[in-house]
């Protein structure tokens, strides 16, 4: 039974791995880049779903955590010569750090830098969440938006660490299909497990009716905080992957447009559904890419954002739950015998 349940997801992972191997071998740099981009968006959307979709406490600060993760990991892996040239004011304990060790072909240093970035971001997220998760509704949305603005102001002004408004460049391109795919798999698995755990059920319960949930002894603060901190960790990971994929970036990237893009993916896919987030990310990345080509051909820049925003409005008005609502794509029932599934469904 358990093996049959695992068969569906295992097949999906196997097919993706096969597709990655083919894409990797094909050498089509454009499509590889697009898929890596998509995988980073999947990580962001699934982690935002955990933070906001499950708990109903809408956070607009996710991209702030991503930015912190990007800068933290990039500083750690920047080669020493570049570090001395670009970041001369770095404190001495950081200036000598260069995480470039690798075991065989595996860049362990990059993995360690990503984990440190995620950990650092979680450490920041804990007190922030502790303070902000007391709020509800739109107030938490605006307070977390405040967090995003604060992060941006700090990144622009902390010249010694970030080069301020100038581009942070020469980051080694470690992120490839396999790293992004592996992290996406980890994020999806962890968030899916959280959804099925006691914490996950508490998150959903307090989202539906906080007072009723509290009245029957369901905790509110702990699940919200867990969602916030774990979501921040993965946002930091996404930041690290992004930094080592794009290799040069500045604080302007990590702001409202990116935040809104991820929110669109979340809402279109369905808040509360892990597979919905994946579907939403795929749909919006594909649509965005198609619209970008239309823009390039017609020179009507701004068109893609208008279409995506209009689509977002239509989804919110007509189908507020998004494509999947809270349901999941039933991959785990794919290989169950038909009579059993027939018995289970009413």
């Amino acid at each position, binding site marked *: 039974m358990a093996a049959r349940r695992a068969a569906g997801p295992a097949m999906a992972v196997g097919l993706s791995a096969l597709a990655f191997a083919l894409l990797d071998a094909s050498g089509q740099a454009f499509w590889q880049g697009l898929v890596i981009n998509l995988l980073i968006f999947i990580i962001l959307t699934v982690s935002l779903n955990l933070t906001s979709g499950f708990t*109903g406490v*809408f956070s607009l600060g996710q991209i702030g955590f991503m930015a912190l993760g990007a800068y933290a990991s990039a500083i750690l892996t920047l080669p020493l010569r570049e570090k001395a040239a670009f970041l001369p004011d770095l404190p001495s304990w950081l200036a000598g750090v260069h995480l470039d060790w690798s075991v065989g072909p595996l860049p362990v240093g990059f993995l360690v830098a990503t984990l440190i970035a995620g950990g650092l971001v979680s450490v920041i997220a804990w007190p922030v969440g502790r*303070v*902000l*998760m*007391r*709020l*509800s*509704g*739109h*107030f938490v*949305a*605006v*307070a977390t*938006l*405040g*967090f995003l*603005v*604060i992060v941006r*102001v*700090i990144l*622009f*002004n902390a010249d010694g660490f970030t080069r301020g408004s100038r581009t942070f460049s020469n980051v080694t391109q470690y992120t490839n299909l396999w790293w992004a795919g592996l992290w996406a798999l980890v994020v999806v698995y962890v968030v899916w497990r959280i959804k099925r755990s006691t914490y996950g059920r508490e998150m959903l319960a307090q989202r539906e009716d*906080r007072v009723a949930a509290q009245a029957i002894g369901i905790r*509110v*603060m702990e699940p919200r905080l867990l969602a916030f901190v774990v979501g921040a960790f993965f946002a930091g990971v996404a930041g690290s992957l992004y930094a080592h994929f794009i290799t040069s970036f500045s604080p302007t990237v990590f702001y*409202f447009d990116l935040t*809104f893009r991820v*929110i669109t993916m979340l*809402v279109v896919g369905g808040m509360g559904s892990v597979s919905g987030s994946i579907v939403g990310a795929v749909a919006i990345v594909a649509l965005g890419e198609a619209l970008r080509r239309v823009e390039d051909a017609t*020179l*009507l*820049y*701004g*068109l893609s*954002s*208008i279409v*995506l*925003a*209009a689509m*977002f*409005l239509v989804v*919110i*008005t007509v189908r*507020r739950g998004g494509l999947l609502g809270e349901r999941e794509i039933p991959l785990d029932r794919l290989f169950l015998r038909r009579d059993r599934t027939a018995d289970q469904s009413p």
Partner: protein
Amino acid sequence: MIEYVVQQVVNALAAGSLYALMAVGLAMVFGILRLINFAHGDLMMIAAYVAAFGLGAGLALELTIPLMVGGTVLVGLLMERVAYRPIRGAPDVATLLSSFAVGQILQNGTLLTTRLAGQPTLIAFPAPAGLGGVAAVGPITVPLVNIVSFVAGIVLLGMLTVFVTRTNLGLSMRAAAEDLSAAQLMGIKVNRVVATAFAIGSALAATAGLLFAVQAGQINPYIGFTPVLKAFIAAVIGGFGSIAGAVLGGYILGALEVFVTAVAGIGDILPPGSVSPEVRAFLQQWLPSALASYRDAIVFLFLILVLLVRPQGILGQRDRGDSL
């Protein structure tokens, strides 16, 4: 020293008026619909573009202003009718997110229009005669637009007060803000009240947009974002949903911002001999001029503090379910 203080006070009042004008529009809509309209800042941006277009085409300021206000009100009403009315009563977060989408449409629509008109993204704002220049009283010089901002803010907010306390429509609006469904049961036409709130908010945002554009000297499609965040902070500080609170919050925020900018680097500005070297060194260490660039971060920290200590704001009433 005294000139410096007077100049800063005028700056604070001018900034406060702009924030108050913006915050009132947010607060009126929020009071009635519980909708935080983030696209409110983009109304300001639209107004600045209409004004730039009018002034650029050689229209007089007296003709540009009605055109600008009319255009902005039209966009505001359209936004309410098309985007917000169909989702009235939806959960808070859904309406908030829709307003982001509306903002994206307005920003990128403006971007697209300027591109089609063959203009660059960042355009210089033609300073209208009568708003540019500085006013000098003795040794004190203040940009004229700051004085105009302050006066315009006071006059418009005074007119608004008369409207909401002395007219039937104003009373209906306050009733709807008190309890929307009860007001509806008493025969108040809610759609009309909501449309009025959007129209007034748009007109005030248009005024703020013109003054902001004159101060900044240049405009782009994204200028509305930071002001609407500030206006939101102002409205929260004062007490969200309360018009008087929004005005109060606007002036508090203006004062806070100007204060942060003014005390940053104060150790370097103070005339020699006025303070002992120890005090000067202390000020230079703890209030460096770099502090000014952290102004927005400080303002948001203040917002978070207010939300935690007194989420209902200074004049607001506590709302069920806003905080644990």
